[in-house]
């Protein structure tokens, strides 16, 4: 950015630098050079001084040399013709008896990013690779990578690659690691540096000599090595065992990632490694640096996806410190919600309760949301706290609490009565309109004052700005009319009249017209349409979080993924998905939907192939299950296999059918939810075995299939595959 008077400044500097008196006084001369660099950092364009700076590079003062080189590297690409003048000095320095000068010159010469540099640097680099000083070799090795990046499209120089592979045996550890880095860049198009058995073992043996940065980098390179046998695998793991407990978090975490990857076929080893690393991970969660703390928390969250119990006893570590920034507190609360169990629920709730009155409204609302999620398991205790919060009469708190009530009623229908009672008592000062209106509409029969509250909204309609609230009001009023017609009829009429005649928002008007025409068709018709499916208590089997396999997250472990927004917490995903079925969610479900070619029904002979695809979350499954119609219901003619449930799960996985949830043990009725994908369609299914002693129901398994988009051929294929698996299991177990 141009500063005022910058041209004057540059002119003055130029005068000073070319003044022979200044040049004679080394200290003054250096001071001017420092000044140039200072302006350069501030963003001033001082490239006009290039000539004078080139002259200044011919000095014995290394500190001054470094400053001038920094300057030249910055502006070399702007002034390539002038930069060529500097090359002679640099090449001379590359032959200096002092290794520090040699290294410095070589490094900076390679940093000149301008075309045609290669011919000047190739010879010094090759010489540098054989230099007796390790400092120069380090620089020369990376110089090879820099040279390659200057002309990325040329052929790879085989001799240099071979030389770099040979230098992997260098006594200096930094040279070794630099070789790996350089080879990785040069051979990028061929898949990077090759880690074969001798190299892997050589690196493993050198691990102890490396500093922590090199260690974690080598561990990352080793990720691509596959041991030939289990013996070799366990040798490697025992060699690396001590690094799991490293005092440097980045080494411990990199080791853990390698363990998880190498031992992917040995879950017990993975569990051991996780247990070992839990201590360093927890220590990072309490580190003095808050950035490190945040990184630690994000990775703890990842580990908990597979091993929710690992940190259970340490739940107090995740209590928020009062001076911590909000984003750390958010993560800690998310973790606390996952760690709740029968023993600690009282303490955790007490802690979360104390965050609810925090000065930051976002934090307070997040704390209330956390309590709301715990309420899905421990509804009574949480309801007490949430109700108590309503007494504070603060807008942001009340609105968050009512939203939680809405979710609670949906997920745990058994708490409806208690919620309605509380809402009844608090509605004198309505806050969060949408959630409250939904509650009033859905459960108007249990809240005696509901019509009067709604009337208040209808009367204040002219001042209401949000169209979402108006639409919700329309739906809620129609629902209310269905259960309490006498009290609602009049105001519903006024509402519809206003929305159809005076409302300017087209969406609201259309919704009002829709309601109006529905009501014209008669009450029964309306009831069928408006009162959609109530939440199904048996779906609660889905809300319990299942343990994910480690492989699901191991690939992003120790990368930026968990820290950046793309790995959002599932909690926010639920809310947005519940509010509006976003098209993005569907895209994610059907990644190949763009090239869907629905197979015509006549080619039934074609073999159906199932595939797993990306996993479905419980929430999306539940939503789709409620939305879709049952396409096929079939009685299998045999009971469910008497095998252990994980056998069943593994068998289904084998034929590419994913199990989402099932009733544990031998409880009756027994249910399981499964899904799979096939040529652009997603198939959801429920297996149900009813009570065998109940009259009219035989003990055979019933399968109900839903699908999106519809493809009968795929369903038939799916059912026959499923049948095959279950029959096989039945034969095995009997």
């Amino acid at each position: 950015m141009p500063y005022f008077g910058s041209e004057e400044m540059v002119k003055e500097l130029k005068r000073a630098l070319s003044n022979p008196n200044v040049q004679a006084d080394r200290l003054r001369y250096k001071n001017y050079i420092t000044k140039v660099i200072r302006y350069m950092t501030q963003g001033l364009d001082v490239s006009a001084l290039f000539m004078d700076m080139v002259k200044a590079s011919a000095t014995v003062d290394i500190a001054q040399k470094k400053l001038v080189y920094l300057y030249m590297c910055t502006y070399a690409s702007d002034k390539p013709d002038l930069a060529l003048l500097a090359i002679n000095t640099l090449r001379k320095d590359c032959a200096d008896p002092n290794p520090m000068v040699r290294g410095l010159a070589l490094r900076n010469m390679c940093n000149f990013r301008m075309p045609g540099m290669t011919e000047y640097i190739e010879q010094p680099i090759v010489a540098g690779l054989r230099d007796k000083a390790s400092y120069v070799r380090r620089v020369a090795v990376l110089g090879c990578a820099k040279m390659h990046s200057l002309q990325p499209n040329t052929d790879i120089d085989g001799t240099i690659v071979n030389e770099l592979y040979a230098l992997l045996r260098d006594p200096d550890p930094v040279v070794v690691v630099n070789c790996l880095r350089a080879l990785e860049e040069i051979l990028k198009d061929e898949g990077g540096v090759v880690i074969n058995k001798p190299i892997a073992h050589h690196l493993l043996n050198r691990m102890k000599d490396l500093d922590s940065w090199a260690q974690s980098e080598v561990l990352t390179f080793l990720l691509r090595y596959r041991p030939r046998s289990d013996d070799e695998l366990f040798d490697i793991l025992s060699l690396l065992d001590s690094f799991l407990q490293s005092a440097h978090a980045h080494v411990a975490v990199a080791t853990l990632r390698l363990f998880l990857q190498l031992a992917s076929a040995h879950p017990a080893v993975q569990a051991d490694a996780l247990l070992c690393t839990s201590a360093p991970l927890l220590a990072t969660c309490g580190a003095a640096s808050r950035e490190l703390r945040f990184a630690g928390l994000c990775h703890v969250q990842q580990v908990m996806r597979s091993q929710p119990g690992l940190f259970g006893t340490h739940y107090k570590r995740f209590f928020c410190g009062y001076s911590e920034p909000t984003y750390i507190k958010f993560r800690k609360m998310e973790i606390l919600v996952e760690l709740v169990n029968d023993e600690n629920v009282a303490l955790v709730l007490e802690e979360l309760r104390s965050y609810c009155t925090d000065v930051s409204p976002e934090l307070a609302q997040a704390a209330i949301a956390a309590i709301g999620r715990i309420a899905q398991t421990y509804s009574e205790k949480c309801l007490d706290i949430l109700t108590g919060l309503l007494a504070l009469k603060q807008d942001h708190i009340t609105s968050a609490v009512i939203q939680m009530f809405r979710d609670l009623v949906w997920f745990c229908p058994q708490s409806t009565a208690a919620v309605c009672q509380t809402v009844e008592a608090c509605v004198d000062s309505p806050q969060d309109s949408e959630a409250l209106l939904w509650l009033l509409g859905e459960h108007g029969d249990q809240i005696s004052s509901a019509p009067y509250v709604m009337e208040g909204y209808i009367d204040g309609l002219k001042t209401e700005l949000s169209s979402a609230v108006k639409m919700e009001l329309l739906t809620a009023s129609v629902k209310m009319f269905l259960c309490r017609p006498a009290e609602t009829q009049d105001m519903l009429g006024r509402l519809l009249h206003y929305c159809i005649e005076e409302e300017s928002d087209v969406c609201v008007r259309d919704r009002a017209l829709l309601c109006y025409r529905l009501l014209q068709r008669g009450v029964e018709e309306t009831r069928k349409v408006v009162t959609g499916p109530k939440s199904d208590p048996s779906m609660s089997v889905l809300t319990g979080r299942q343990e994910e396999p480690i492989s699901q997250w191991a690939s992003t472990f120790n990368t930026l993924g968990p820290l950046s927004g793309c790995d959002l917490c599932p909690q926010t995903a639920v809310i947005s998905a519940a509010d509006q079925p976003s098209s993005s969610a569907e895209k994610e479900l059907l990644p190949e939907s763009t090239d869907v070619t629905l197979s015509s029904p006549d080619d039934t002979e074609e073999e159906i192939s199932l595939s797993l695809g990306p996993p479905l979350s419980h929430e999306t499954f539940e939503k789709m299950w409620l939305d879709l119609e049952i396409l096929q219901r079939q009685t299998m003619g045999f009971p469910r296999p008497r095998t252990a449930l994980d056998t069943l799960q593994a068998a289904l996985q084998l034929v590419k059918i994913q199990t989402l949830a099932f009733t544990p043990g031998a409880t009756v009725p027994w249910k399981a939810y499964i899904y799979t994908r096939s040529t652009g369609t997603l198939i959801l299914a429920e297996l149900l075995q009813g009570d065998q002693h109940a009259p009219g129901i035989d003990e055979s398994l019933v399968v109900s299939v839903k699908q999106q988009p519809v493809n009968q051929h795929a369903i038939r294929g799916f059912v026959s595959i499923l049948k095959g698996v279950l029959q096989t299991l039945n034969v095995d177990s009997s």
Partner: protein
Amino acid sequence: MISQIFILSSKGDHLIYKDFRGEESKDSINVFYEMVTALSGDQPPVVMSHKGLHFIHARQGGLYWVASTKTNPSPFTIIEFLNRLAALTKDYCGSLSEKSVRMNFALIYELLDEMVDFGYIQTTSTDILKNFIQTEAVSSKPFSLFDLSNVGLFGAETQQSKVAPSVAASRPIMSSRGEQGGKNEIFVDVIERLSVVIGSKGVLMKADIHGEIKIKCFLPSCSEMRIGLNEELSIGKSQLKGYSSAVRVDECRFHQAVKLDEFDTFRILKVCPSQGEQTVMQYQLCDELPCAPPFQLFPSVEKDYVNRSVNLSMVLIFLKLRCDLPPKSTALNVSITVPVPKGSTSMSQELSSPDQTAELQPKNKALLWEIPRFPGGAQLSALFKVDVPGLSSASLLEVGPVSMSFELPKQTCTGLQIRFLRLSPTQTGLSQRWVRYVTHSDSYTIRI
């Protein structure tokens, strides 16, 4: 691999900028600064992305230390590297501030040049780096032994039982100039961070101690040093406590250069410290506090109507605070934050001594009570009358939890002590050894 590294002041001034790979233009600094200042408090700023370029940053000394990258590296590596860069800057410049970075930018460029090449971390060890660093540090403040204003912040125990000024350790490690560079000193600090939650009935709900032993070494070359810890120190939960007041920690981790062959039997750490600051040992103790919590609070909160007819009401907050430290010790810079109901307008207070202060911060919905010195065994009380128009009985729920911050010099809560500090073979008497202890409150919360 790292694409660029830059250091920004809190106002966004460019202090240091180095481009390692030439992949991105200098504009990315401004992009970063715009992104980081546009964030609201609840968004995590540690990793931010813009068009395929990821920014990872750490805040140290009020500055932004930023690395940008186009690959997907380990966040732990980058964050720890940025922290290490800040620590090295502190070692070389003496202190960490916008001013010291501005004055020593040539030195920091030199450091960065040696630490990172083409985006790859080469070395961060002081021992190696000191061979390459040519520029001398410019101290941002003149060092003076007569600057005694802060004496006693750190207690010091030495063979001469002298007290070192607290600024003694904040000077550049490499300096050839006479009076400040000539001193061969070594500081060993035991620093503990206390994180405590006390329940409404005075019950200890949570108590964690994170501790570390740090060495700051100014000796140009140091042979092996032996640090003797308490002999009765026990590690881990399994070891039974005897009748004695054994000192216990749950787990500890050591710097990789520490030799532990005498640790198991004699609790002696052997280390060859390199110049500058390094953490030789980190330890933690969870869910247990070997001593009584340093502060107990006895609060009472009442509602009082001044004039019921005009609805003028106030909250009376009476706080009695007792310091349970041994009588000889003192807590410093004690500050107590009490959340008050929303809509509090003004406050009057009765404090027991003139050096204490209290103020109402309506923006934070809190009142802040500050006590500069709090001797052990003492008890202080204060009465606050907060005017809250339109107070309801539920509003009292908003008072609490109380959080405190303080500093306990010459104190460790675990009881960890350094028995002796020996340099072997014994060097000339020139070297001075200082041992300092301090406990900070990381988070000290008392529920009402």
